[in-house]
């Protein structure tokens, strides 16, 4: 009797620990809308694309002219099958809107995607977008819809077929239009 009771108690404690851990992870998820982040009591389904950790984050600035564009040259390691990116507008001014484009110009696999941050000065980045490719060179551009200075954080990660960000991702700011 005593043994059975002890077993039940241990099982109950284990279940509570697991439930508590799941709640913690949900509350600090970085992906999803602002509503999801604020409403920590709601258990949301896991995102299809995991968030990018800080080692894949880079900061930059754009000068006032409307046409200025930062170019990040990205070298992806072996096992890369796609490159993901998103941008966060850290500026106090709402206008203009800030966008990021990922492009692969390598022959036979040319493709590109765009992501625009709909709001400024918050912690919610633009949607994560993905382009296909393999180990080698990609480019990520950051620009804006009209005149006005901007500061930003851009997340860039080369990923494998398991959608894991690869530590060998090397992103360098090669055109700095601040």
């Amino acid at each position, binding site marked *: 009797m005593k043994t059975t009771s002890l077993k039940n108690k241990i099982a109950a404690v284990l279940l509570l620990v697991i439930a508590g851990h799941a709640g913690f992870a949900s509350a600090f998820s970085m992906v999803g809308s602002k509503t999801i982040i604020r409403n920590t009591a709601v258990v949301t389904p896991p995102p299809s694309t995991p968030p990018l950790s800080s080692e894949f984050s880079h900061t930059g600035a754009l000068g006032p002219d*409307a*046409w200025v*564009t930062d170019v990040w040259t990205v070298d992806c390691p072996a096992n890369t099958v796609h490159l993901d990116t998103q941008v966060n507008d850290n500026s106090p001014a709402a206008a203009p*809107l800030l966008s990021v484009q990922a492009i692969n*110009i390598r022959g036979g696999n040319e*493709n590109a995607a*765009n992501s625009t941050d709909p709001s400024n000065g918050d912690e919610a980045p633009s949607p994560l977008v993905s382009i296909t490719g393999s180990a080698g060179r990609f480019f990520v551009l950051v620009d804006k819809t009209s005149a006005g200075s901007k500061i930003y954080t851009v997340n860039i990660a080369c990923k494998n077929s398991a959608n894991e960000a690869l530590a060998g991702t090397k992103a360098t700011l090669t055109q700095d239009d601040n």
Partner: protein
Amino acid sequence: MGFFMKNTSLRKIVVTISLLMPIGYAGIAKAHDIPNRALGVPAAATDMYLFTCYDLGDGSGATEHLYLQISGSGAGPKVSAQVFKDGKALNSTAGIVVGKRLNGGDGDYTVTVNKSAAGNVTYNISFHCENKSGGHTGTDWRQFPPDQ
């Protein structure tokens, strides 16, 4: 009377030439156009083009830059184009002309077209490769699939 007749004919010739000259000039100066292109609903939708600039060998010389202007229609998301060559890039959002700010010379320019939010848009691109004086040089283009 004869002189008047001659003078009238001369006037007609001058007027005709005057009318024809601007038409001819407009024909020379007219940009290439990619009209009525569309981007679908997804916010990430991006069309991708390749513009190739080259020396025609007719004395107009080598290309200095790619002139490009994009315009969107309707009150939907803002349409933008990015011109990229040899690691250099610049952006053009509806109406801003891309020209001498990116002097890429002869060769291949990659152009991407996208928009600021989800929603259907249509757009036009006006473009031509130009030498230092603004004269036309050889210009070819093609779109990479898929058309988004």
